[in-house]
């Protein structure tokens, strides 16, 4: 048997005894594991001592194993220390042979881990084009991650400035990132904290045993029944920031003598919160798994879980609205219906995941697994929809004072009386104006008789559905080849079919709703065929479909995605030196499959002929690569194919004394996602021009020190992401129409340092801990954009640059007679003094935390943390960075316009204070009862912007010389909030 154990044992003291008689000597071996999930703990420092004198010390290997030989018979005190774990003391008796302790389990030091990741805010801004999924780091016994993963989530911190898509999240070895968007799929198992607690995480460019990963770490959640912490566990959690109450129960059998293990985990999260009205949870979650071990070599597990439920969403508003309401937590999504709060934006999900995993361990050095995982179900998001009626949104810009009067007369908003009318209702918070007026909307529908005496709803609630069917087949193998080499690799196949459609969720008192496109009607009111959402139905029936509750309408298409990849890595170890090399190759293709024929883009009929109705030819054409092609909405689109390849290299040297120096580098080539690839997937099959793979080069260098209670990591990183595309749709006032905006060639660069530390601090059991993330995440390229009219696919701008995207010029000025004057050179041109960089938004580029942690031997812990966040920027809209928007209607660009239109907003720095306290009690060594109380934002700072976006709209000026921006919309962090968790386990 080849020893997998890689010991760096210092046995200097033992050398003297090597000549002694064999039977007087023995040893001790075992595996250091995390009590939670029996995950091996690598690099645990093991010290054996007799009478207070160290006799031997060493470290556990990557697999947690350790071995000491040549020990004189006798009693030893064995101390096992690992960063992030409570040190363990065991008495060991050596009796002439190598005693196998089997497992030495460590308890995670992080009692704060009871404050678990369920508390991550789940915001959804997909409607606003604003991705606000927070990057979730997982506690990994890494001093930095431990602090950042929970402590920075409220500010919506994105690690290293990366988006959520860049973080690879695996479940039982299967990559779970959404096939269509790439988003991390955290919400699939939210509420199942116990079943998903056991996980492994790598950081940055590190490779994992489970998958190749990217540049933002890999997290693999084991999720098998045998990985769930054994025993019963109940918890009740109350928090004031998201939902009031969470109840959870878990049981895991552990591995029984007959080879079976089973586990379940159920939870409910319900209620509202202290800060945002209308936001509520009604979420449940279940997990059930069973596993059987056959002999020593085979293991089969079957798991199913889901987090069904619904929750009310929050919306961003402008500062004007927040100031009028005197509340930065104002939420425009709800209103009173019969005196009760009703939210129009509700996320409703039920997406069960089922997985079957077979693991083979033919010998100690090889492990292979095959997993089949299937995700299905429904994911809905409700919203108001209305037809030919007044906009019901309370914070619609025409309902605000600023629409009527602005001090600057060039806005041409001069009616101060109307301004006061509007201001008055907001300041007095009259709910029929400041919130949705359900009573009015119902009454419009109650009176909306059509020619046949039926009630045609003008306002309805629609449900936007994204229903996935995602099948993954994954094969993984890892093994040890000789003392120095280990290898891992895998194959993944993914078939995803996601159906996007809308359905009528509530007719709000009416009897039916018509399936016609009210946007198309703005432009084509006189053409009954062109306004049809379902032209085939219209032609067959002579009228648009009258929709009942539950009927599909609007759009309906499949996103079809096929993906295959293969990866392999090899690890080399020579003493303290380690190297690894990993390679990946992949193939991705996707296409849109339209299920309805839209009147605007009828395409060709089944015989390949042009479509016409009442003598009007409906078929329209667009130029694709210089060729005229019919624009289609029904049937299959072109299917672009992408071959990708990536490589990673890692080097590491483990010094004695707990120092580790390591570096990683990677080059990645990723296919664009479906969601970035279609110009207007709701309506047509047209692909974004210039679609290509995203290339990323990334490198990091790290130093880590773990010893004597010290745990420190310092990292420097550099990443360049190239050739990204982005798709958005918005109303463009300069065109008076709804437009699609495809931007390509977006490059960005992320560089910075990361520091995390936890160090003993004078008093016993007191430690000082901190984290710092200081970076520069910027845009580095001038992207190109193609803008088309949504209703006609007419090209407004074709492959034009977005000149002010990456930076805006700061012109040289001088003060002349107390006025700022832009200076010009000899030719009369304005002088650019410098270029102001534009930053990757919605995360602080400087984030720091410093805290004190005190824990007593009686299981109390106290923690106080101060946080500082700075240099967070607002998400930019590219329209404001085009020549067209900057120059204004007169087409003349002036420095004033450039300054005004292209600048990026930087949020004010933030200082926050948090505290935690907790205690565990053990009763009869069997029952464990405890609580933890976490208090966030102790100073009740209500002015902390966490994100937002620029609206894409423009205001004409009276002078016709320039445009003004619409106000930006923001999200704010909640003020003081608590989270109390009570748990009981046995």
């Amino acid at each position, binding site marked *: 048997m080849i020893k997998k154990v890689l010991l760096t044992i210092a046995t200097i003291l033992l050398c003297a005894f090597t000549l002694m008689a064999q039977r007087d000597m023995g040893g001790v071996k075992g595996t250091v594991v995390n009590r939670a999930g029996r995950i091996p703990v690598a690099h645990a420092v093991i010290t054996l001592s007799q009478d207070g004198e160290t006799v031997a010390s060493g470290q556990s290997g990557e697999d947690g194993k350790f071995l000491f030989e040549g020990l004189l018979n006798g009693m030893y005190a064995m101390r096992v220390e690992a960063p992030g774990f409570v040190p363990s003391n065991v008495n060991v008796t050596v009796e002439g042979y190598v005693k196998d302790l089997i497992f030495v389990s460590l308890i995670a030091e992080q009692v704060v881990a009871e404050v678990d990741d369920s508390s991550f805010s789940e915001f959804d801004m997909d409607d606003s084009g604003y991705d606000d999924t927070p990057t979730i780091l997982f506690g990994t016994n890494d001093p930095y991650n431990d602090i950042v993963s929970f402590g920075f989530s409220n500010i919506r911190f994105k690690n290293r400035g990366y988006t959520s898509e860049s973080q690879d999240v695996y479940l039982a070895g299967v990559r779970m990132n959404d096939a269509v968007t790439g988003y991390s799929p955290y919400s699939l198992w939210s509420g199942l904290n116990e079943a998903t607690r056991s996980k492994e995480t790598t950081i940055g460019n590190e490779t994992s045993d489970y998958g190749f990963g990217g540049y933002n770490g890999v997290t693999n959640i084991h999720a098998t029944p045998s990985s769930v912490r054994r025993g019963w566990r109940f918890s009740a959690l*109350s928090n004031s920031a998201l939902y*009031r*109450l969470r109840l959870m129960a878990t049981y895991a059998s552990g591995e029984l003598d007959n080879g079976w293990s089973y586990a379940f985990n159920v939870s409910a999260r319900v*209620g*509202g*919160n202290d800060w945002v009205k*209308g936001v*509520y*949870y*009604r979420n449940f979650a279940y997990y059930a798994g069973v596993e059987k071990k056959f002999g020593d070599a085979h293991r089969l597990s079957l798991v199913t879980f889901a987090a069904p439920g619904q929750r009310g969403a929050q919306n961003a508003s402008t500062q004007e609205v927040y100031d009028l309401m005197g509340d930065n937590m104002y939420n425009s999504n709800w209103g009173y*219906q*019969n005196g*009760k*709060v*009703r*939210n129009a934006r509700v996320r409703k999900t039920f997406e069960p995941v089922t997985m079957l995993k077979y693991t083979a361990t033919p010998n100690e050095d090889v492990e292979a697994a095959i997993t089949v995982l299937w995700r299905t179900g429904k994911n809905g998001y409700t919203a108001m929809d209305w037809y*030919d*009626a*007044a*906009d019901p949104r309370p914070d619609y810009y*025409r*309902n605000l004072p600023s629409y*009527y009067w602005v001090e600057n007369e060039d806005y041409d908003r*001069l*009616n*101060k*009386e*109307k301004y006061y*009318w*509007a201001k*008055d*209702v907001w300041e007095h918070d*009259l709910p*029929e*104006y400041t919130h949705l007026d*359900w*009573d009015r909307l*119902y*009454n*419009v529908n*109650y*009176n*909306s008789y059509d020619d046949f005496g039926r009630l045609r709803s003008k306002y309805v609630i629609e449900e936007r559905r994204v229903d996935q069917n995602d099948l993954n087949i994954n094969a993984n193998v890892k093994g040890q080849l000789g003392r120095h080499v280990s290898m891992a690799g895998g194959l993944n196949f993914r078939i995803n079919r996601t159906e996007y459609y809308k359905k009528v969720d509530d007719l709000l*008192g009416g009897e039916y709703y018509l399936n016609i496109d009210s946007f198309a009607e703005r*432009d*084509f*009111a*006189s*053409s009954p065929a062109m306004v049809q959402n379902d032209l085939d139905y219209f032609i067959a029936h002579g009228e648009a479909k009258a929709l009942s509750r539950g009927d599909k309408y609007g759009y309906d298409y499949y996103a079809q995605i096929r993906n295959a990849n293969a990866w392999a890595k090899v690890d080399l170890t020579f003493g303290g030196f380690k190297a690894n090399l990993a390679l990946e190759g992949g193939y991705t293709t996707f296409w849109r499959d339209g299920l309805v024929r839209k009147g605007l883009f009828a395409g060709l009929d089944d015989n390949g002929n042009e479509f016409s109705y009442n003598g009007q030819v409906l078929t329209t054409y667009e130029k694709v690569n210089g060729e005229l092609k019919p624009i289609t909405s029904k049937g299959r689109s072109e299917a672009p194919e992408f071959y990708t390849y990536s490589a990673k290299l890692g080097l590491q040297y483990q010094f004695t004394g707990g120092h580790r120096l390591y570096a990683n580098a990677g080059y990645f080539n990723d296919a664009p996602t479906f969601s970035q690839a279609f110009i207007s997937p709701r309506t047509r099959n047209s692909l974004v021009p210039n679609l290509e793979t995203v290339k990323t080069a990334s490198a990091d260098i790290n130093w880590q020190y773990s010893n004597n209670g010290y745990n420190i990591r310092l990292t420097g990183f550099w990443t360049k992401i190239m050739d990204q595309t982005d798709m958005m749709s918005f109303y463009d006032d*300069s*065109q008076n129409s709804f437009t699609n905006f495809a931007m390509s060639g977006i490059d960005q660069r992320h560089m910075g340092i990361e520091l995390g530390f936890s160090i003993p601090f004078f008093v016993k059991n007191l430690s000082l801990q901190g984290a710092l993330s200081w970076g520069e995440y910027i845009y580095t390229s001038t992207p190109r954009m193609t803008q088309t009219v949504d209703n006609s696919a007419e090209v407004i701008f074709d492959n034009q640059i977005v000149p002010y995207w990456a930076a805006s010029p700061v012109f040289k000025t001088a003060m002349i007679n107390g006025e700022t004057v832009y200076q010009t050179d000899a030719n009369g041109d304005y002088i650019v003094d410098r270029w102001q960089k534009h930053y990757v938004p919605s995360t602080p580029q400087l984030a720091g935390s410093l805290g004190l942690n005190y824990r007593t031997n009686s299981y109390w812990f106290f923690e106080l943390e101060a946080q500082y966040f700075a240099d967070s920027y607002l998400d930019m809209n590219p329209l404001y960075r085009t020549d067209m928007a900057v120059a204004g*209607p*007169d*087409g003349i660009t002036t420095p004033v316009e450039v300054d005004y239109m292209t600048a990026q907003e930087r949020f004010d720095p933030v200082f926050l204070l948090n505290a935690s306290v907790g205690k565990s*009690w053990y009763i009869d060594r069997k029952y464990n*009862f405890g609580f933890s109380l976490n208090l966030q934002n102790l100073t009740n700072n209500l002015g902390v912007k966490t994100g937002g976006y620029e609206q894409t709209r423009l205001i*004409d000026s009276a002078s*016709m010389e320039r445009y003004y921006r619409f106000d930006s919309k923001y999200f704010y962090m909640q003020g003081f909030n608590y989270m*109390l968790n*009570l748990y009981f386990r046995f």
Partner: protein
Amino acid sequence: MKKLYTILLTAALCASCEEFQPVFTLKPEAPEYQKPVEMEVNTTIAALKDMYVANGNKPITIEDDIIVGGQVTTSDKDGNLYKSFYIQDETAGIEVKVGKNGLYNEYKLGQWVYVKCEGLTVGDYNGMIQIGYSDPSGEYETSYIEHSAIINTHVFKGPYAEPVEPVVITEAELHDKVNLGRLVTIRDLKYDDHVFILAYVDPNGDRKDYTNNGIFIDEEGPDNYGVTTWACSEQKWVEYLENGNFDSVEVGSGTVADYRQEDGSYAIGSMAYAVSQYFRMGKTDVQVRTSGYARFSDTEIPQEVLDGTATVTLTGILTEYKGASQFTLIDLDGVITADGKPWYK
């Protein structure tokens, strides 16, 4: 310990029962029907309009508690009216400029509407007296009653009633002030083969600066320039333009033809344009003015009418533009033959 557990749990539940409501009730019950408003009218619409005249034909912001009432005579459903509707009592009709979309959803044909005029402004637009809000910009005599807070405190929805019967008027009555703003029927109009369109040149495609780029397609030119629809939507405009209909129209120092580009398109703004189609009632011109955003903008005027072999009888709102008679159709149901049959179905 378990006591603490229970106490805290109960506290958490009860401290905030209100926020659990949406969780368990999910959907509140449907709201009740709103009852129509009853109001005491103290002034006739004619008297209100007279206040404008009495003010020296200048906009007047009403300071007294004047309440007028009338039945709704128009609908913006077909898009020929936009952000306003007309009400009429026995004395007169008047346009109420409520600046919202889809007004027909809330103000039904025939429904009584009461306008509490205090704080509103009565003003004129090229001969038509309207009720709106003051316009400090001075561009117009009134502005829209726009914000819901102003609408809800000034314009009240009364009881529903049968739609108002149109008054049949004679040629002589076309210029009676009392008929302006009223729902009327005018009989036996002959097509007069003239159009008026104010269009815009837009060589740089910015769709801006209309003031200096207006082109007038008017009755000075040949016939109706081949414009045979009630108005033209954006596509219809492009169709007419690319068909060469307006090539001879003067613009700047040249003609529209000068803006023709190699691919056959024109460097002239394409928008939906309102069209005034000229008809004759006896010896009086009546311009039937239709918005390019109306649903029936691209509907052809019946061929027989264009040929002059048939006449139309129209029902709609009689208006005036700088002394000339204009006519606003509400929908195509208001277009019938001389013997009372609908031209359109």
